């Protein structure tokens, strides 16, 4: 096991900058998600760490050893591919045994390790099958067993659950997390699914256009996004744009929005405020929603009922705001209704706009 350090890594393909000065520290034993839209460079970064491709500039080290020019087969990593990439000409057991057998390990040792790995992914009895006789979830498990049986220093997963259906994906998320905890391996996985990133990882790195936008624990990124992109890509957010008042912003129509005590920006600069939809309270008159400093008036344009909650779309000064209300049994608001929105400064994040 080992941590991974990526320092100032850049990689261009022709004129396209796939990675632009990216630095991330993946601590030993952690579970990391690299999150970003397609073309953000997350897969390119994973391939640099794996060793399929080398950075133009920058350093990559695994367990303190500099590896940026070491080819993949010498890096001692384990990788799970999006399409599983199981060898169709081999049985499940031979697939899992591959990494040990190319190393020239003894047959008895290989058989024992393969069985252990298959047991770990709960496929102990399917060693004799061929990959095409397995379901998608089972193939995923075989790919995982194959990647960890060699005791790699790092486990890399490239959209590992992308090809599975929703219910199976949730099962596999839990399963993957369990196995990762059990063997304690540093794990880096690439995904474009924000929910997956939030629920599975200890830390998330958000990438956009080849740059690292923000990195930290899921709670921190969700609660304290540092950019509009981070705020809207990880979860939903209402974004207000205006001029900074130092500890908040003033909207073009003069309404002030106060941010949390810790947020400070030079007054007068362009800035925005992000508020999560579930942090906003909605009601018919302001009195019933007493207490919170931030208040706006608007009109409900649409309501989407989702059982445990309802999402209200509220029109205000040409902007559509989103409010999520838990189903507590209270009266639901009708479309067309004039409403008041209130939320606390602590629920507001002040973001500098460049």
């Amino acid at each position, binding site marked *: 096991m080992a941590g991974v350090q990526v320092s100032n890594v850049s990689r261009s393909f022709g004129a396209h900058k796939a990675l632009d000065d990216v630095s991330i520290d993946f601590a030993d034993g952690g579970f990391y998600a690299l999150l970003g839209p397609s073309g953000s460079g997350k897969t390119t970064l994973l391939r640099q760490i794996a060793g399929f491709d080398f950075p133009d500039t920058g350093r990559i080290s695994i367990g303190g050893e500099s590896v940026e020019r070491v080819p*993949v087969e010498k890096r001692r990593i384990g990788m799970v591919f999006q399409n599983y990439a199981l060898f169709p000409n081999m049985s499940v057991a031979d697939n899992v045994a591959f990494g040990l057998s*190319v190393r020239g390990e003894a047959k008895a040792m290989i058989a024992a390790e393969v069985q252990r790995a298959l047991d770990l992914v709960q496929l102990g009895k399917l060693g004799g099958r061929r990959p095409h006789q397995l379901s998608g979830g089972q193939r995923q498990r075989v790919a995982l067993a194959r990647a960890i049986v060699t005791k790699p220093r790092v486990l890399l997963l490239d959209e590992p659950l992308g090809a599975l259906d929703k219910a199976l994906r949730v099962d596999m998320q839990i399963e993957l997390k369990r196995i990762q905890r059990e063997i304690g391996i540093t794990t880096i996985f690439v995904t474009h699914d924000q929910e997956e990133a939030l629920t599975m990882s200890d830390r998330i790195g958000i990438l956009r256009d080849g740059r690292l936008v923000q990195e930290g624990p899921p709670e921190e990124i969700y609660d304290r996004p540092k950019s509009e992109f981070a705020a809207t890509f990880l979860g939903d957010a209402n974004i207000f744009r205006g001029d900074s008042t130092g500890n908040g912003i003033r909207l073009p129509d003069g309404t002030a929005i106060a941010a949390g005590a810790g947020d400070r920006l030079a007054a007068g600069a362009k800035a925005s405020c992000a508020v999560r939809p579930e942090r906003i309270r909605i009601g018919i008159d302001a009195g019933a929603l007493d207490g919170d400093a931030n208040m706006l008036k608007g009109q409900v344009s649409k309501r989407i009922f989702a059982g445990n909650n309802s999402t209200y779309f509220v029109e205000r000064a040409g902007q559509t705001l989103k409010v999520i209300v838990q189903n507590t049994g209270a009266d639901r608001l009708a479309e067309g209704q004039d409403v008041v929105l209130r939320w606390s400064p602590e629920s507001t994040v002040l973001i500098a706009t460049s």
Partner: protein
Amino acid sequence: MAAQSATASCSGLRSALPLLAPAYLWLTVAIFLPLSAMVFFSFMTDLPLTGKPWAFTLGNYAAFFSQSLYLTLLLASLRLGLEVTLWCIVIGYPAAYVLAKVLKGRSREAIFLLVILPFWSNGLVRIFSWAMVLREGGILDTALNAVLPFKINIDLMYSYPAVIIGLVHSYVPYMVLTCYLTLQAIDDSLIEAGRSLGASRLQVLKRVIIPLSMPGLVAGAALIFVPVVGSFMEPRILGGRTGTFYGTVIEDQFVAVFNWPLGAALSFILLAVVLVILALASPVLRRAA
């Protein structure tokens, strides 16, 4: 239940008939009838066309076994087929690999075209071009002597290597095409998966790529081996006196000696031998594939 499925497959056949008919009609007229005539000829003492009296005989087949020459020539032809097939694998497989896995886009199309080109040129022209290259004072001889500081004599014409060169040139595209198709179907992520598990490029080639492309190698080998064993044009033109093989002897029976019955009998013996070889090899090849 069985009757039901029988009628179902029967009606399936009926609706497929218009689609099958042209192919089978053509095969009947163009191959089955002439071949049947040849089978008939091979059991005759003489051709009825010559006007001489004729009778049925097994003598033509007996001739093969009574003279060791035919067996020697057949073995030589089988060896030729094996050697040409091996050279086609050695030359064609790496080319197919580069085409399928290394080159992309326009350069792939261009190189592909160059591989296919021998197919589009006339076979006889191809062989006589080689004759110009290989003979003493030919293109190869002149070119090498122009470059090398010492004098050498290259005269490959009318030799066994010349026959091999001509045949490999004619047949290597089959190997490139069949291997290209199977190699292209191998997902790149399989190669990457192999390497991520610590396998060197050579180990990945040996344990993943070659096993997965085996169907293409086998198909290519069958497509090359069978016609090369019976080939006569390249051996005759490029091999001269050394180019006497089983195929040239069959050709002689038809165009020089006019002993069609013997030629036909020798052809069917070759067909039988080739079928036996393919049948014996098929379990091994199927396991490999």
